[in-house]
C-alpha cells in the first residue's frame, strides 16, 4: 500500500513518516451499558468515548468493536430490549415530524445561502486552523486564537457558501456542507476542551506543561477525569461534566521510554 501511494519501494528507499490528523479522540458519552443519553440509543465501537480519549492507538477500532460486541452488548442490549420491549415506530410521531422538519429546514438554509465558496474551501481553512493551533502540540495562546478564528470561519460559511443543484435528489455538495457545518461546531468544542485541560496527557501536548526534558507533564491531581461536554443548544456554551478516572489495580504512573 505504501509503495502504491508514494511510488517508492520501502525496501530500497527509507519510508517517509510524518504526523497527520487521525480522527478525533474520544466520542459520544455512554453509560456503563454503552447506552447514550437517549434511551435505547446504544453507541458502540469507536463512536463512543469509553475506551479512548487521551490516546487513540492503532487498531483501537478493532479492539473496541470486539470488546463492545463480545463482552458488553450481548448482555446490555438484550437486557434493554427485554425490559423496554419493542414496538413499531410510526413516522407520524410528533418527535419524528419535528426532526424531519429540522433536517429539511437546515438543508434549505444551506442551499439558500447563495454565496461563492465551496464547502471544501471552508473545510481546508478550518483544517489549517486546527492543524496549527489544536494539533499534537498546543498552547493556551494558540487555542484562544483558534477560538476567535473558528467563529469567523463559521460566520463566513453561513454567508458565502454556494451549493449548486437541488436538494431533492442526490447532492454530494450539500452532504459535504452539512458535515463541514458540523465540523465547525465540533472544532470549537475541541479547542475549548484543549484549553480547559491544563496538562499534557497522551497524544495532547500542551507546551506550557512539560518536564525540563521536554516530556509530557500530567496533572493527576486536577485532571484525572474524562471531560464530558453537554450540548445545551445552538449558540449556547456547552456545559462540562467531569467523569473521574479511578484506578483499582493499576496505579497511575508516568510511562518513560528512556
Amino acid at each position: 500500500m505504501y509503495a502504491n501511494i508514494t511510488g517508492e519501494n520501502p525496501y530500497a528507499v527509507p519510508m517517509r513518516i510524518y504526523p497527520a490528523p487521525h480522527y478525533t479522540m474520544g466520542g459520544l458519552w455512554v453509560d456503563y451499558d454503552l447506552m447514550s443519553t437517549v434511551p435505547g440509543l446504544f453507541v458502540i465501537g469507536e463512536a463512543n468515548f469509553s475506551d479512548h480519549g487521551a490516546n487513540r492507538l492503532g487498531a483501537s477500532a478493532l479492539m473496541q468493536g470486539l470488546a463492545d460486541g463480545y463482552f458488553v452488548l450481548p448482555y446490555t442490549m438484550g437486557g434493554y430490549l427485554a425490559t423496554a420491549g419493542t414496538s413499531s415506530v410510526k413516522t407520524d410521531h410528533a418527535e419524528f415530524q419535528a426532526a424531519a422538519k429540522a433536517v429539511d429546514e437546515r438543508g434549505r438554509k444551506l442551499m439558500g445561502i447563495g454565496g461563492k465558496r465551496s464547502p471544501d474551501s471552508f473545510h481546508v481553512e478550518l483544517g489549517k486552523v486546527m492543524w496549527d493551533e489544536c494539533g499534537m502540540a498546543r498552547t493556551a495562546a494558540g487555542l484562544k486564537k483558534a477560538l476567535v478564528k473558528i467563529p469567523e470561519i463559521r460566520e463566513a460559511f453561513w454567508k458565502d457558501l454556494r451549493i449548486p443543484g437541488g436538494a431533492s435528489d442526490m447532492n454530494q455538495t450539500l452532504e459535504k456542507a452539512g458535515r463541514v457545518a458540523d465540523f465547525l461546531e465540533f472544532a470549537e468544542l475541541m479547542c475549548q476542551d484543549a484549553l480547559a485541560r491544563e496538562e499534557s496527557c497522551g497524544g495532547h501536548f500542551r507546551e506550557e506543561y512539560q518536564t525540563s526534558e521536554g516530556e509530557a507533564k500530567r496533572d493527576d491531581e486536577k485532571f484525572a477525569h474524562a471531560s464530558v461536554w453537554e450540548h445545551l443548544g445552538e449558540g449556547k456554551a456547552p456545559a462540562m461534566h467531569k467523569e473521574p478516572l479511578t484506578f483499582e489495580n493499576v496505579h497511575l504512573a508516568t510511562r518513560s521510554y528512556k
Partner: protein
Amino acid sequence: MDLTLNVWRQTGPKAPGRFEKYAAKGISEHISFLEMLDLVNEGLLAEGKEPIAFEHDCREGICGSCGMIVNGSAHGPKKLTTVCQLHMRNFKDGDVIHVEPWRARAFPVIKDLVVDRSSFDRVIQKGGFISTNSGSAPDANAVPVPKHDAESAMDAAACIGCGACVAACPNASAMLFVAAKVAHLGRLPQGKPEKDRRVVGMVEQMDAEGFGNCTNHYECMEACPKGIDVKFIAEMNRAYAKAGVSRTEEKADGGTG
C-alpha cells in the same frame, strides 16, 4: 501534468447521460485519481456548476465504496488497485481519460458515476444468519479451523463488494461477488450448518436482481482489486448443486421430530 477528461454525466436514473469534456491542468503525479476528480470538482464549483458525483469513503482501498470505469477498465489500468488507490503517476501528460459508471442492469445509475448497488445488499441479506450461541464469547480455540480452510476463507473474505466484477463482465454477472460471499462462510465450521440455505438463497436473489450468468470470461478476476479467484465460482456452483439435491423444505413448526 495536463489531462483531458471525458466524464459520464447523468442527472438521474431516467435521464439520458452523455460524456462531458473537462480539462484537468497541473495535476501532480502524487495524487490519487479521486483527488484529481476533487480538484476538477472544485473548479466546477468555482464556476457555479454541479460537481461530478462519485462515491468514496475510506480512500484506502478497503471499504468498497468507490468504483468507476477508467479508460474501459474497472478501477482503471492498475491491477489489484481500487480507483482511490490509483495514483496519477500511472498516467502521463496529455492523456485523454474516459470515466464512466459501472454499467449493469442490476446497478442503475443514480447520478453521474454513482450507481445503486443495493442489489448486492439484498444478495447478502438472503445469505441469512449463522447459528451461534449468544452470551459470553467462546474461547478462541473452541472451534478448530484447519489452516487451509482459514486461509481460503480469508481469501474469499477479502472481497470488498465494490462491484468491479459485475462491471467488467460482458454478461454483468455477479458470480464472483456472490461466490466470494458464499465461500467465506461456507468454508468455516461456523458457517456449515446453514450452508445449503445460504447458497440457494443468495444464488436465487442474484438471479432475481437481473445479474447475468458466468460464461468463463474471467474478466471479473482481472478487474477485482482484491484478486478474488474464479475458483470460488466453481465452488459455489458445486455447493449450489449439492444443496439442491440434499435440501429439504424447512417447516414452520420445526417438524415432528
